[in-house]
């Protein structure tokens, strides 16, 4: 068996192949590499640390089950993992319960959450906010201004247009572009 250090240098595709081949060290490396991103995504969707932690466990159990079907299309498996997270979240919302099918398949035992675990998730969320803070600041000036006035200050489009001396359509486009840029940036791991 390879050392853990060796695993950590392997690509996502190699690690996932290792998972499919029953290599628990490969899973450990994959898990540690992508857990923060998965937690960030789930936290931003649920805004609840407990749900985030619970869903993350289900996501990685689902990753283990789906490893054999993974077909690498990107240098990173992050989009695949986030896709699994998104599906898990969607199924959970439809059912009104946190999905647990994958964990049941693997026979996992319930794990108790403690304050320190929740604090860890909250710390990750805080990091996300810090990241967003930077992303907003990095928007082009016209988009940033429009997003601030519309999203932050909740001003009417007409009011903003008057202030910026442009048409409502222009304001709407700037806000839309600004939010699209933020969404795009946030999707990147």
């Amino acid at each position, binding site marked *: 068996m390879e050392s853990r250090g060796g695993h950590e240098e392997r690509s996502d595709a190699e690690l996932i192949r290792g*998972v499919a081949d*029953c*290599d*628990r*060290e490969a*899973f450990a490396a994959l*898990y*540690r590499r992508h857990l923060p991103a998965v937690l960030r995504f789930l936290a*931003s*969707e*649920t*805004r*609840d640390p*407990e*749900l985030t*932690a619970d869903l*993350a466990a289900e996501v*990685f*159990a689902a990753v*283990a*089950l789906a*490893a*054999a079907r993974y077909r690498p299309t990107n240098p990173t498996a992050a989009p695949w993992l986030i896709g699994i997270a998104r599906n898990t979240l969607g199924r*959970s*919302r439809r059912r*009104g*319960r*946190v999905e*647990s*099918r994958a*964990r*049941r*398949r*693997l*026979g*996992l*035992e*319930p*794990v*108790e*959450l*403690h*304050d*320190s*675990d*929740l*604090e*860890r998730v*909250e710390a990750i969320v805080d990091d996300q*906010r810090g990241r*967003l*803070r930077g992303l*907003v600041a990095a928007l082009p000036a016209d988009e940033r201004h429009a997003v*601030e006035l519309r*999203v*932050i*200050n909740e001003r009417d489009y007409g009011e903003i247009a008057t202030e910026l001396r442009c048409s409502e359509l222009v304001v709407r486009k700037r806000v839309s572009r600004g*939010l699209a840029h*933020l*969404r795009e940036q946030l999707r990147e791991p």
Partner: protein
Amino acid sequence: MDDYFAQIEQQIGAAIAAGAHRRRGPFARVRAPRLGFGLGPLAIAGSTAIVVAIAAFVLLNVHGGRSPQPGGGQGSQIAPALVRDFRILRTPVTSADRLPPHFADGGTAGIQRGLFARDLTHTDPGPRQVSDVASIGLLPALTRRTEIPGTGVTGWVIPGRRGLCWFIETRTLLLPQGAECVGVPADPATALIDGPWAGVSGYNDHLVGFVTDRVLAVRLVDGHGRGRTLPLHDGFYVSRLPGSDQQIVAVTRTGIEPLYPQRTVSTSGIAGSAARVISRTSRPAIVLTGTSGLRAQLDWEMSCALRGSNATPGAHAPGVKGYQHHHSYPVPATVQIGFPTDSAGRPSCYVGAIATVAAHARGTVHVAITTH
């Protein structure tokens, strides 16, 4: 002991090593917590809404999101103790802080006319409602607004010369919640706030509280002191309704102080119920049952969409009215709820009720909303 995430890693790793992920087998039973937590509307919001909410939070905190506005210079009119005790009152006023016109009479007049005012009869000592709101001398131009991230709750604070009023607005109810009006903390002349709190307001199965800067953290704890820290934003916190053995406490520099209930309630000493819609022909009532003779504090709220505004639920239509009542009753009791009427008949309403029992009391209380 390993943390939650390490244990998950180990368990999944062990399952992988055993090949469990490659075979199909019978499912073992594991817990599946409800996702239907009270913050559902936000949780199921799309990614855009999340971005918007986070962006709002970030910019309000980082840039302050606030620029001086005419009227900000009136800060000296606010009771200095309020400015000292509530951080939100030390932030400059911006256009985002303006009370929307859909609030009855711009908010302040509505509060002073008693539209949101409460009739509080606490069974426990705690923050007391100002009986004469006019005595506070509200300064609506200095109103502060804050969104409590991740909750869908917006908090409003209207400061005054001798106190303040605050109320909340949620995405799930049709109108702003009743205002809580309190005097200046630690002011012997008013002494309306004798703790680190400024009161609590309820919606659905949640409570929103507003606390002073003395509070370093707010926690929802059980009888053994275990629990979790609630996010605190500009003095506001949101908590699920505490269970029978739970309590919301404030962590201050001088120790732990109870926020809600003011004292630990006895087992089953707190109960809640809600009815989303009351039909136009029914007569709703709140029924308290349990240990006979026990005195319970009943807090109920009702928001009604009058005919004509029903077509736009969720919008802050002028045809929406809110009612609140807070009083203590001996168990058993039945409290009839009077319906507002408009020219077209009875409106449809949403009623929520919470009953609590003081710590020193022995017994249980249950609350139910009935329609006949």
